[in-house]
């Protein structure tokens, strides 16, 4: 056997491991490239927000600023009325999230625990309610709240009330998904527990409270966080029902340019150079995202598992 033949023989035996290594390298390369594309906007946002006004107009600087400059954040905070907006956004989203969590739990429980008439149809309706686009149902909702406001004199538009009412009746942001998360978790609680409680004379609501709620605290947290984040990020309905009556972070970011023009010249030490640039905008964007970043890095596992728990894979 010649040397070449031996070599070929060797390759034939070793072929599979080599193939496997190549496949692994390709997979990692793909994943890392895609991760880069995912994160690229965040990197460029961060680098832009740390540039001083001189760095921004400097053609030589692409991504890495000469020196780290935090002035943009100071100005963005002042322009957006940052701390008040942050405080408002937090309680606003929290109120809506609590309402949504309660109603989703009740609805999910009814579907998971009981057999009742029209169950199938109602369950399908929950899924359908997810598909219906917001604009087609929003106009009458809006008119409804204006009607209530003008007939009762209670201020509705510009407060949290309209959205809270809708959330409490299960029609908030992505309510269907929240209900599904609860439904799938509640289904896993063994029925024997309820039977035992029933024999001991527990009322249905007591069964719900003592068994279901107390056993699913982690799921409740997941649903609350999802709801919080979605309400925070929801701007379409919020903009129309709240408008500029309440200072909220995401909506302040939406009108950042106008705010900047009105307010920046009044910031001390800033009179001369009050010209808007990307750095200010990116700093503002980062400020509005910080709370969500914190939530995500504390509870990232729970978020992913929450979506897994919806169990919607098509069956």
């Amino acid at each position, binding site marked *: 056997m010649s040397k070449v033949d031996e070599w070929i023989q060797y390759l034939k035996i070793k072929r599979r491991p080599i193939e496997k290594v190549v496949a692994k390298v390709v*997979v990692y390369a793909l*994943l890392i490239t*895609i991760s880069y594309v*995912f994160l*690229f*906007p965040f990197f460029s946002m961060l680098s832009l927000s740390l540039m001083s006004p001189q760095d921004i107009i400097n053609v030589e600087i692409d991504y890495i600023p000469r020196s780290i400059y935090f002035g943009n954040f100071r100005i963005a905070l002042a322009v957006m009325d940052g701390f008040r907006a942050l405080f408002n956004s937090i309680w606003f989203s929290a109120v809506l999230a609590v309402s949504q969590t309660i*109603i989703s739990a*009740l*609805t999910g429980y*009814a579907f998971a625990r*009981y057999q*009742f008439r029209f*169950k199938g149809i*109602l369950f399908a309706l929950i899924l359908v*309610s997810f*598909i*219906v*686009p917001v*604009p*087609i*149902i929003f*106009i*009458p*909702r809006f*008119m409804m709240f204006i*009607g209530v406001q*003008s007939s009762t004199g209670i201020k509705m538009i510009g407060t949290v009330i309209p959205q809270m009412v*809708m959330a*409490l*009746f*299960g*029609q908030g942001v992505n309510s269907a998904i929240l*209900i599904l998360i609860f439904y799938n978790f509640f289904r896993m609680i063994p029925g024997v527990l309820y039977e035992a409680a029933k024999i001991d004379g527990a009322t*249905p609501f007591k069964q*719900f409270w003592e068994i279901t709620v107390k056993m699913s605290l982690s799921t409740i947290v997941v649903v609350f966080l999802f709801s919080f984040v979605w309400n*925070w*990020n929801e*701007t*379409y309905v919020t903009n*129309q029902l709240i408008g500029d009556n309440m200072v909220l972070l*995401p909506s302040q*970011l*939406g009108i950042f340019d106008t705010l900047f023009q009105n307010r920046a010249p009044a910031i001390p030490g800033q009179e001369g150079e009050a010209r808007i640039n*990307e750095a200010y*905008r*990116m700093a*503002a*964007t980062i400020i*509005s995202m910080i709370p*969500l*970043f914190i*939530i995500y890095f504390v509870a990232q*596992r729970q*978020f*992913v598992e929450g*979506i*897994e728990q919806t169990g*919607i*894979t*098509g069956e």
Partner: protein
Amino acid sequence: MAKREKQLSDRQMLKAIQRSNDQNLIAYSFLIPWLIGFAVFTVGPFFFTIYLSFQDVQLTGLGWEYTNIGMENFITAFFGNIDFVPAMISFITLEITYVPAIVIFSFILGILLNRNIKFRGGFRTIFFLPVIVLSGSVMDQLINNEATTLDDFSENIIFTMLNNYSPFFAEIMLSLFQNFTMVLWFTGIPIILFINGLQKINQSLFEAAKIDGATNWQILWKITIPIIRPTALVVAIFTIVQIGMYSINPVFTLIQQSMYNFQGGLGLSSAYALVYTMVVLLFVGIAFLVLGTKREKIEVKLTSIQKRNFEMIREKRLERKGVKQDG
């Protein structure tokens, strides 16, 4: 004895009925808030918007005033307003280009992440991040300040060639590539759904296929994709709905602007919303057509004679049982 048995079963039946009535009552008392909300805030408004789109709505001192104007709003939408048709077209292009791209990419990423690799959790964390931190206004800021644009592909030789061939197609491809980040940002939840679906596939199927000498490529097309199709349908519908929610969708802005005009604007914006909804539902329908699986139903139709035969057989069996028990 037969009589007693019957009585017992009657009582059991009554009990069962009572229990199910109780269940109905309890279940509905848990459901009632959602039911009311669904009726008042979703079903009602849905039909009311349809009604509004044929009306001229004015806010007067006495409240809302409606006058029937037939198709006027739709005529204004399509021929009077110069913004609506372009906005609709760009929304449709958005759906046509983004949805397939998102479904395909999330499927590929799902497969990659379903393998046994290191830092799986880390990658998943990165891919899910946009779901949490992106709001409409954040996305606007990032796009407007070109933080999402990876590179300028328009000078690329392939795009120049495409442009000579078909400018329209070239433009679509260009926007897809330049906003590739945007496509990826929508894959957060779909990836999780795909991974979940992939993990539910019975592993022995793959083993059996491998023993029969199937290549990985064949396994992908013959086993994985057919099984994952329902998941792909869910993902497609989810994406169709989600894309509309962000302000990259120009129709939303249009509806919003028109809504603030209380002198006749509400009817017009209802017409916009109705057309928009029809388009979204049309896309959902297309998704069902493309990705929906046909359930093969085996329908057994019994002729009346066959039915009689079955009944007779059953009766005979019961009789025999009765004889045995008596004996």
